[in-house]
């Protein structure tokens, strides 16, 4: 896929970092402010998709990105699975909030909830990236 003009490339490079960190902010503060893993994950993936569309990508690179996105996607859900299973392994309940709850409205509070948000953030951002990449690949092969 070809990239866009130099203006778009420069602006998107400047913006991508901001978008990325804004997404991380939404994920990390998910238990205190509106947002959370899903919303933040979508913003994070927005940064990557912006870069891919603005700068263009060649076939070899897109497959590498797809593999990495697939790996991150699985590891995100796997992290979520591990967090929820630890409670079960401790002999109590699935999804037990086994960490200390902390002081409300602090960044380190609410036990496992922020960890779950981070796991969901990884999963959603990687999944959305792979969906967009899948659409790009489909567009290439539709002339058969």
């Amino acid at each position, binding site marked *: 896929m070809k990239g866009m003009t130099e203006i778009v490339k420069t602006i998107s490079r400047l913006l991508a970092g901001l978008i990325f960190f804004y997404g991380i902010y939404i994920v990390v503060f998910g238990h205190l402010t509106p947002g959370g893993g899903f919303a933040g994950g979508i913003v994070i993936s927005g940064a990557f998709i912006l870069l891919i569309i603005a700068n263009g990508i060649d076939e070899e690179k897109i497959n590498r990105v797809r593999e990495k996105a*697939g*790996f991150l*996607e*699985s*590891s995100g*859900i*796997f992290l979520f*699975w591990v967090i*929820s*299973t630890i409670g*079960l392994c401790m*002999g*109590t*309940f*699935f*999804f*037990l909030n086994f960490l200390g709850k902390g002081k409300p409205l602090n960044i380190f509070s609410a036990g496992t909830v922020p960890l779950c948000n981070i796991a969901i953030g990884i999963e959603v951002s990687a999944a959305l990236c792979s969906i967009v990449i899948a659409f790009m690949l489909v567009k290439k092969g539709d002339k058969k």
Partner: protein
Amino acid sequence: MGSSSITQYLLPVLVVLPLGGALLIQLLKKVSKLISDIIANFILVVLVVLVFSLLNNPVLVYKVGGWMPVKGIPVGIYLVLDGLSLLLLIIINMIGLISLIFSISYMNKFTNKPLYYTLFLLMITGMNGVVLSGDLFNIYVFLEVAAIASYSLVAFGTEADELEASFKYQVMGTVASAFILLGIIIIYSITGTLNLADIGRVLKDKATETPLILTGILFLVGFGLKGAMMPFHAWLPDAHPSAPAPISAMLSGVLIKAIGIYVLVRIMFNVIGVTPIFSNMMLYISAISMTAGVFLAFAQWDFKRLLAYHSISQMGYVMLGIWLMTPLGILGGLFHMLNHSVFKSLLFLNSGAVVYGTGSRQLKRLGGLNQKMPVTGGTSLIASMSIAGLPPFNGFWSKLIIIMACIQSHHFFLAALAVLVSIMTLVSFLKVQRYAFFGELKQASKDIKEVPFAMCFSMILLAFLCTTMGVLLFPGAKELFIDPAVNVLLNGKGYISLVLSR
């Protein structure tokens, strides 16, 4: 509480373990080619051991997240294990394990084996969740997990006709889900709760007939589509043959029971309550499924498509038994459900072995395979006699009970129909045997070989089960496996107080 307080913590493991395995396979697929085989099979072995260790337990209730009921009213999601769930769990995990053993060799033909195992384990997760869950919306979520995994598995070969079948299946499946969701919405608007037992408790005090008739019809259409009952069957003959053979075995042998018939029966018998009109309607639907399925199967020359039509017909038997609503009928229906899962998955694995060996599933192009593939031929003969209901095999006993139950409840016409359909099934499978396995060996298939060990092993295992499962009717085994399930349905709304008291 005592020992049950420990055992109930095993219930979420049945859902959590295959889910974790599915993700682990994706993470570790780069390490070694064997690792996905090992993880998937290991997890299914653990699940089978776990399920059999849960036999002979009282009703177990697990409250997810530790949300205890407030003043006897449930607030969290319940997982409930009773006899009926256990029977379905046995079917799901046992057939799942045997199909997975078959897949070790069979799936080498396809690319991306780890993805196959991931989807397979997700399907197991969904089905285990559906049969364990005691919460209406939770059932819907797990149902979608299982269904979406099966959509992708049907399209796994990515040939044009497979993609088309999968698309058809997706459209019909989504329509079914919409109906089911609408039914759930109506029930929630009447009762204000989603817990199955609690819904039953609230409905007891309210006189709300009309909306319940509507939900009954919505659920009938929704789960009828999922379970391929006769007017809603059109997707099945496309979807089931298109999948890889072990998946066809899972779809026909397990999925249509777990997310179709089981949920409908559970909601109708244990929660809403069956009116005579509804049970009569279901009797007619099952009689039509039974007869029309076998007639449609008669004309097929595609091995797997023929088997798919027979699934519709045999599901008719299962429903006929259950919806007679007599103890004998329910016993026959549930026993036939267990038997059908065994012989139908064996037949689909046979068809997979034939495709693996010869590359074709058109009966007219096959012939004389017994000379080259003795294990496939022998096991398929056992399975054919089993599905046709010939005496020593398992299908005979369950069909006999169903026919006896029909006569006992004075449905003589249905009994005669069941006998007729059984004869038609026999004729249809004589055709399969004659064209595929007996007769002259075709020139094209002179140099074929018997399938690898893993495939032979799983087929022999299923054939062994086909021959011996009649013993489940003897005292001793009957009390352990089938009677608890029958009692759940006979108990009807007794389920409500049983669950709420835990």
